[in-house]
């Protein structure tokens, strides 16, 4: 009886553990794909790789930004943040202007933008 109870208990724990794992993985997908906001920023005057490096450093300081992609020839920078930390246009404009560049169009999207230039590190 004691042994039977033990097996049932272990089986329940395994089911519970699997359920938790599954629910964690589902939540991670949700956060990554649905709760991020993608931002495309047109930066005028960013004409050299060292200028782009300076801009990349500043944009990485934006709350929630993990990675910055830059298309130098097109004068574009791409960032994404959790939707709760969505940066305002005004805050982005200030970062670009303070870095010494001129801001163009700022676009937001719930899906990632297509980046033309390859980012081979």
């Amino acid at each position, binding site marked *: 009886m004691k042994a039977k109870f033990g097996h049932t208990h272990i089986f329940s724990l395994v089911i519970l553990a699997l359920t938790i794992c599954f629910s964690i993985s589902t939540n991670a997908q949700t956060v990554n794909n649905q709760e991020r906001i993608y931002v495309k920023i047109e930066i005028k005057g960013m004409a050299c790789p060292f200028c782009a*490096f300076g801009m990349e450093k500043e944009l990485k300081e934006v709350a929630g930004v993990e990675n910055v992609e830059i298309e130098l020839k097109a004068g574009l920078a791409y960032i994404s943040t959790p939707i709760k930390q969505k940066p305002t246009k005004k805050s982005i404009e200030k970062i670009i202007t303070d870095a010494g560049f001129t801001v163009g169009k700022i676009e937001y999207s719930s899906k990632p933008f297509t980046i033309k230039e390859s980012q081979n590190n």
Partner: protein
Amino acid sequence: MENANIYVQLIGIPYNITSKFQVGGIFPFKFITPNGTQTTGGFSDMIVFAKYQLYKKDETAKTFRVLANIKQSFPTGKTTSVPPIGSGIYQTYIGLIIGKISTDVGVYGDFGYNITSNKTTDNFLYNFSIGIPLLPQKYPQKQINSYLEFNGNYLINSKIHTFFISPGLQFIPGRRILFETSFQIPVLHENVTTNKTNYMVLLGTRFLLN
């Protein structure tokens, strides 16, 4: 001086007060090894500078900027050694920087008047360079640029005029580092009686520490 190797390590610390106004300091360490003699080295003349942006026109992947440039050099380098590490004089430079940069070509001009202390002659300095990328510009960079630089110096009182031309190459393998080399040839050596330069080979590297 003939056939000397000079190693200069500059540490530049710029600080942006506003997006238009930058101040900073340049701390140079200089080591000179003349042929057949011992190396003399140490901290050379310290420079503080201020740059103010007078004009800016930004477009997609291109920019045109004009800046006022003021530099003050202090005689912190020793002059007792042979050859000397410092100039032994205070120098105040007032000039203009003009730059037009795009991802296809970069043109840069820098000229100004240098006021010197201790009855040393003032001079007018002018530099001009044009750079062309040999690979398509992208970021992060793996880039090779060719450039042609012109450096002029006119000493007002002694009327000594030197003008050098330097073809060079830059290699930028990563975000924070740049290697460059150039070959400097004198084109004009007006009224120069001593220490004529035959040629100079320049090798350099730049790191962005922060």
